[in-house]
C-alpha cells in the first residue's frame, strides 16, 4: 500500500511535469484525473467505513478441550462500494496466560451485502478463551488509503476441563453438627427436620419413629429414619496463584483445574459433596462454593474462569486461614502449583481434618521426584503437568 501511495504521488509529479512539457489538452485532463483519483478513492472509502458494521459470533459459550468450535466474523456493508481487500486482525488468548496471539484474515467485502467468515478454533487447555477482532483494515479499490472499522469487537468462550479418572478412596469419616443444614446423604441421624429414609420396622426401633400413616396403608410397619446434619465432609482448596511465567503456565493451570475437577467428580460419584475454596479475582476475595452435583461443578468452573481478569493479584493464600480460625472437615485437599514448608506448617496448625492431601502440580517428572516424603500427617502428592493419571500414591479423601 505504501508503494501504491508513492506511485500515486510520483504519478502526480510526473503528470504535473508532463502537463508543463506537453502541449495539448490531454496533459491537463490527465493531471486533473490523477489528482482526482485519490480524492474520490478516499471519499469512497470513507463512505464504506461509515456504512459498515462488524460483529463476532461464537457457536457456543462453552466448549470442551480440543473441541472445535466456530467463530464467525460478520461484516455488514450497506454502501454500494465494494472493498477489494479488507484485513481483519483477530487477537486470541487464554486468560490463564498473557500471551496474545493473532492472525490476519484478508477477504473482500461485497457491496450492499452481509457476509460471514467462519473459522474453526480449538484449545488444548482449559480456561477462558478471549477472541477479539482488534480491527478490520479496509482499502479503497486502488489500495491507496486504508481505514479501520470494527475496532475491538470481542467475545469469549469457556473451555471446560477434561475429567480424568482418578483412583482415590473416599473416606467414611464425618463430623456431625446439629446446627448444620447440610445432611449426610449416606448416613441417618437424629435430626427430625428432614427424613433420611423409610424402612421396615426392626425390633428395637423407637416407637415414635414409626410412620403410622404409611404403615396403615401397608401390611408392615414402616419406620422413618431421620437425617444426620453434618459439616462439609471434604474441602478442596484450589490455589491458582503461582509466579511461574514459563511455557508451563497453561499446562500447570490446566492441571490444577483438572485435578480439582477430577477430585470433585470422585466425591460426587461416591455420593459425597465437597466444598471448594478459591480466590475470586472479580470479587477480590476468597469464595466458598458447595458442589454436590455435576451441574454445580460446571457452574463453579465457569465462575472460576470468568472471575479471571487482567489484574491477577491474589491475596496471600494464608489469609484465608487467618480469617477462618479452624477449618473443621473430614478431609482437606489443597490443589496448588507452589509448595513451601511455611504453608505446610500453617495448614497443620489451622486445618482440623482427619485427612489432609496436598496435590502439587509440577512441570516435569524430575520435579515430581523431589517430593519423596510426607510432612507430618499431610499427604503430599506431586502431579506432573498434563498427567493427572501419573498419581502413583494411593490417597484417601
Amino acid at each position, binding site marked *: 500500500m505504501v508503494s501504491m501511495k508513492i506511485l500515486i504521488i510520483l504519478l502526480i509529479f510526473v503528470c504535473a511535469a508532463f502537463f508543463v512539457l*506537453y502541449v495539448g489538452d490531454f496533459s491537463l485532463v490527465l493531471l486533473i484525473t490523477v489528482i482526482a*483519483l485519490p480524492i474520490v478513492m478516499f471519499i469512497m472509502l470513507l463512505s464504506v467505513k461509515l456504512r459498515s458494521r462488524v460483529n463476532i459470533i461464537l457457536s457456543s459459550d462453552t466448549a470442551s478441550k480440543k473441541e472445535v468450535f466456530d467463530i464467525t466474523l460478520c461484516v455488514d456493508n450497506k454502501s454500494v462500494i465494494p472493498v477489494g481487500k479488507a484485513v481483519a486482525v483477530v487477537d486470541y488468548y487464554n486468560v490463564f496466560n498473557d*500471551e496474545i496471539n*493473532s492472525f490476519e484474515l484478508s477477504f473482500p467485502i461485497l457491496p450492499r451485502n452481509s457476509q460471514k467468515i467462519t473459522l474453526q478454533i480449538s484449545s488444548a487447555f482449559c480456561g477462558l478463551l478471549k477472541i477479539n477482532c482488534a480491527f478490520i483494515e479496509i482499502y479503497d*479499490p486502488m489500495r491507496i488509503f486504508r481505514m479501520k472499522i470494527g475496532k475491538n469487537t470481542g467475545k469469549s468462550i469457556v473451555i471446560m476441563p477434561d475429567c480424568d479418572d482418578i483412583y482415590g478412596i473416599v473416606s467414611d469419616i464425618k463430623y456431625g453438627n446439629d446446627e448444620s443444614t447440610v445432611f449426610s446423604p449416606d448416613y441417618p441421624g437424629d435430626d427430625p427436620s428432614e427424613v433420611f429414609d423409610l424402612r421396615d420396622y426392626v425390633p428395637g426401633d423407637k416407637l415414635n419413629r414409626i410412620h403410622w400413616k404409611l404403615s396403615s396403608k401397608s401390611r408392615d410397619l414402616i419406620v422413618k429414619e431421620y437425617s444426620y446434619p453434618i459439616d462439609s465432609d471434604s474441602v478442596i482448596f484450589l490455589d491458582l496463584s503461582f509466579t511461574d511465567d514459563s511455557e508451563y503456565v497453561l499446562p500447570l493451570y490446566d492441571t490444577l483445574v483438572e485435578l480439582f475437577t477430577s477430585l470433585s467428580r470422585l466425591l460426587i460419584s461416591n455420593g459425597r459433596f465437597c466444598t471448594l475454596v478459591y480466590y475470586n479475582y472479580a470479587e477480590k476475595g476468597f469464595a466458598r462454593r458447595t458442589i454436590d452435583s455435576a451441574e454445580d461443578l460446571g457452574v463453579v468452573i465457569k465462575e472460576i474462569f470468568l472471575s479471571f481478569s487482567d489484574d491477577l493479584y491474589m491475596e496471600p493464600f494464608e489469609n484465608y486461614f487467618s480469617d477462618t480460625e479452624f477449618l473443621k472437615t473430614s478431609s482437606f485437599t489443597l490443589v496448588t502449583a507452589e509448595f513451601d514448608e511455611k504453608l505446610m506448617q500453617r495448614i497443620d496448625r489451622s486445618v482440623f481434618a482427619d485427612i489432609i492431601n496436598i496435590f502439587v502440580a509440577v512441570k516435569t517428572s524430575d520435579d515430581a521426584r523431589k517430593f519423596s516424603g510426607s510432612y507430618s500427617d499431610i499427604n503430599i502428592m506431586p502431579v506432573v503437568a498434563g498427567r493427572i493419571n501419573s498419581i502413583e500414591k494411593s490417597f484417601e479423601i
Partner: protein
Amino acid sequence: MKKNRSVNNSGIEICDSITMSVRRRKINFRKITLALLATLGFYSVALSFLEMFGFSYDAGVVIAAILIFSLFYAIISLTGKKFVWFASASLIVFSVLALRNMDHLTDGFKFVYNFIYKISNHREINYFKHLDPDLEVTCTTLLFVFAAWFISFVIYTFTVVRPNPIPVIIVTFPLIEVGLYNGIELPVFPGILVIAYWFGLLSVYGNDAGRYNGGEGGFIRKGDNFAPKRNMRLKVTEQCAMIVVSVIVVAAAAALCVMKATDYKRSESVDNKRSEIKHAVNSFSVNDIDAGIAELTAALGMKVNINKLPLGITDRVNYKHITDLEATFSGACDGAVYIKGYTGGIYTGREWENLDNEVYDVNKEMFDDFENANIYPQDLPHIFMELATGEDDKTFSLEEKRSTVRTYVPYGAAGGEDLEYDRDLSVSSQKKGNEKYSYDFIYTSANNAAGILGEKQSAEYSFLDLENREQIIDFTEKKGIPNRYNSVSLDVYLKNGLKSVKTGATDGNALMAGLLENEYREFVYDNYLYLPDTDSMAEIYDAFSDILEKSKTAVTAKSKIELLKELRDRISSMTEYTLSPGRTPSNRDFVNYFLFENRKGYCSHFASAGAVLARMAGIPSRYAVGYIVISTDFNENTKNGDGSYTIKVADDRSHAWTEIYLDGFGWVPFEFTTGFSDSSVFSQSQMTTTPAVSGTTDFTRPTVNTPLQNSDSERADKPGTQTLTAAVTQTETVSSPPNTGNLPEANENGGISVISICIFCVLSLAVLTLLVFIRRFIILRNRKKRFSEGGISGRIIEIYFYAEKLLAFIGENRENRSYSEFAAAAEEKYGGRYFEKGEFIRLKDIAIQSSFGRSEPELEDLAFSLDFAERFAKKIYRNSKLYRKFYMKIIAVLI
C-alpha cells in the same frame, strides 16, 4: 484436502477451513468483467496510436483484424485451462506467419518509422531510404495486423487470465509514448481510456497479487495469515477495477467539459516553463553535471551557485536563437555592454573556479569593511566613473525571459535593490522567479576607464566637512592610517583625484571607496595573478615573452591596455574563431592546446587565453561569463517612445570575456575574442570554413580572420542564417549563457537524447528483470517437479544432488572424492552448523541405497530427505550476507 493446523504456545489451534458466505448471492461476472476491461484497453490503445499518426494503411483490414483478434482472445480467455492450448497454437501460427512475411513486416516497420521520424522532426526526410512507396499501404497494414495480433494476445492474457499490468504496460506504453515524446497531440478520450485501463488493471493486480494457488476457491494460509485465493468466487477485484475505470472516465469527462465550457487555453507562463525545462533537459550533459543540475534547478525555479566552469568538454556550440534576457537602458551606450553572471578567479588548466573560501576567510575583515561602508568591489567602477566624468546615472533594468542559473549585472551598475553581493565576484538576486531587476548604471569599459586614469599619485584629502566623517575616522583608526587634522593620505590613480568633476569638492563616498580600493588592490594582486606552475604555462610565456617583457614598463592603465591589445592581436593571428573547435584532450592544458595545437576556439578559449596572458603580464585578470550587448543594438528598432532602449538578448549573445583590474578603478571587461568589438559580434554566418592546421607550432602563420562587422539586422536578412535558425529551432539545439562553449553537442539529427537513454535503460532493466524471474520460475518449477514426481528412489537422488549443490555453494565441492569421504568432510565442516550432525551422512546413505539398493526406500526416508534439503537451504540462506542471498536466490536459484 490435507488440513494444516497452526498451534501456538497457548494451545489454541486455528484450523485451515475458513468459509465465507453472503446473505444475498449474486451472479458472478468476474471473467466477463475482466474481458470487458481488456477489450476497453485494447481498443483504446489501438485508437490512440492510430489517431495520433495519419499512417497510410488499409483501415478496413486493420479494423477487421482488431475486431477479430479481440473477439478471439476474449473468447479463449474465458475458456479457463484450455486457454493455454489455444494461446500456444495462436502464437505458433503467429510466429510462422510472421517469419514468412518478415520482409513485408520489416518494410512496414521502416515505413512507420519514417512517418514518425518525419512528423517528430518536422522535416520531409526519410530515415530509411530505398523503400518502394507503392508497398507502403500493404506493408504498413500487414505490420498493424500483426501488431494487433500480438498486442491483443498480451492484453487479454495479462488482463483476464493472469492480471499483471507490467507486461501490458511494457507493450502498450511505447505506442502512446512515441507520440507524446515527439510532441504529437494525443486524442483526449482514447488517451484517457488507456489510462483508465492501466489503472483498472493495476487495481486488479493490487488486490490479487500473488494469490494464484490453483485449485478451488477459498482461502489459502501462510502462517497466521489467511488470504482469499484468486479463484474465490466472492471476490470483488473486478468490481473495484470497473469503479476505478469509471472514476477516471467521469473525472476526465468532467475536466474536459469544464475546459470546453471555459474555453481553456494554456497559460503563457506554463509554456515558458515548458520551454525552460526542455532547454535545461536538452543541455544536460554528463560531462558537466554541475552545470546541468544548475540549469535544471534554475528551470524549476531554484538557483544553484556554480563555482566551477569546466573547459573544453564539448566540441561545438549551437544556438537556438531564443530570447534569454530583455535589457532596458534609459539611454544609448557607445560601446559594448558586458552583462556578467559568473566570474572565475582560479585557472587550473582544465577549468575556471572561484577562489577558495579560505582566502575569503583570511580577508574577512576587509570584506566586512566593504559591507560596513555599504560599498562593494563591484560598485567601485560606478563610483569612480560618476566622480570623474560627472555623468548622470542611466537606469538599466533586466528581465529574465527564461529561468537562468545566475543573476546578470553589467559593469558600472550599482545600487540594485534586492541584490546580494557575492564577495568580489558577482551578485545574486534575492527575488524569486523571472522578475525584473533595476540598477543605476554608468557605461563602463576598459577604454573609457583608461581615459580617466593616470599615473599613481599620493594625495591628501580633508574629510572634516564630509557627511561620512565618522565612518572615515573609524576606518582609518582601525587600519592605523594617519588622519591628523581630519585629513587622510592615500594612493589615487584618477587624473582628477577624488574630487567630483561636477562640484569640484572631495566626494565622501568616493573617498571611502578610495580607501577601500587601496586595501582591496593588495588582495587582488595577491590572488588574481596566480597561474599553475606547469610546462604548458612556461611554453605560453616563452611564446609571448616578447610582448610580456614590455609589461615592466606598462604602469599606466593606458599602457596596460595597449599591451593587452598587442596580446590580443597575437592571439588573433595565431588562431581562428569557430563554434566547433572540438574537445580539448583531457590531459592537455586548455589554453596551451588552444594556442599551439588546435588553434580554433570560441569566446571561452579566447577569454581564458587572454586572462592567462594578462596574468603573465602582471595584470590581475579573471574569466567572466554572461551576455554582450553591442552599440549597434541601440537603434531605431529597439528605441522606445521615452527614449529608452529595450534590447532582447538572445542566447547567441552569450559570451565569455576577460576582466582586468585597473588600479584605482576596479574590474573592467576586456575583449580578447576575435571578431568581437564594441560594435560587432562574430555571427555563425561569418565563420570561416578553412580547416585548421594542427600539429604545428608555427603560430606566426598568417591566418585570415577578418571579422565582419554585420549587425543583427543585416545578419537576419541573410537567407542562410534564416535557414539555420529554423533548423536549429526545430531540432531544439540550444546553448546556455553561463556555460558558453561548455554545452553538450546538440542533437540536431534526432539522435539519442538523455531521456531516450534513460527510457532505454529502464526498459532494458525491466526486460532483464523479467527474464531473470522467468528463468528463476522455470528452474524452481522443474526442481519441484523432480522432487515430487516419479519414483521415490529417483526423487531422493535428485534431492541428494541438490544438497551437493548447496554444499558447493558454501564451499564444499565433492570433486574426485568418494561419496563417503565427501559426506564425512561435509559433516565435519558443517555438521551442527547448517544441519544436525549425522544428517548428511544419513542422506548420503539413503541416496546410495536408492541408487544401488534392491528395495525401494521408505516414504519416511523421502520425507527426511526433503525436510533436510529444505532446512539446509533455508539455513544457508539465513546465514548468508545480503549479496550472497541475492546470488543464491537470483543467480544460482538454489532456494
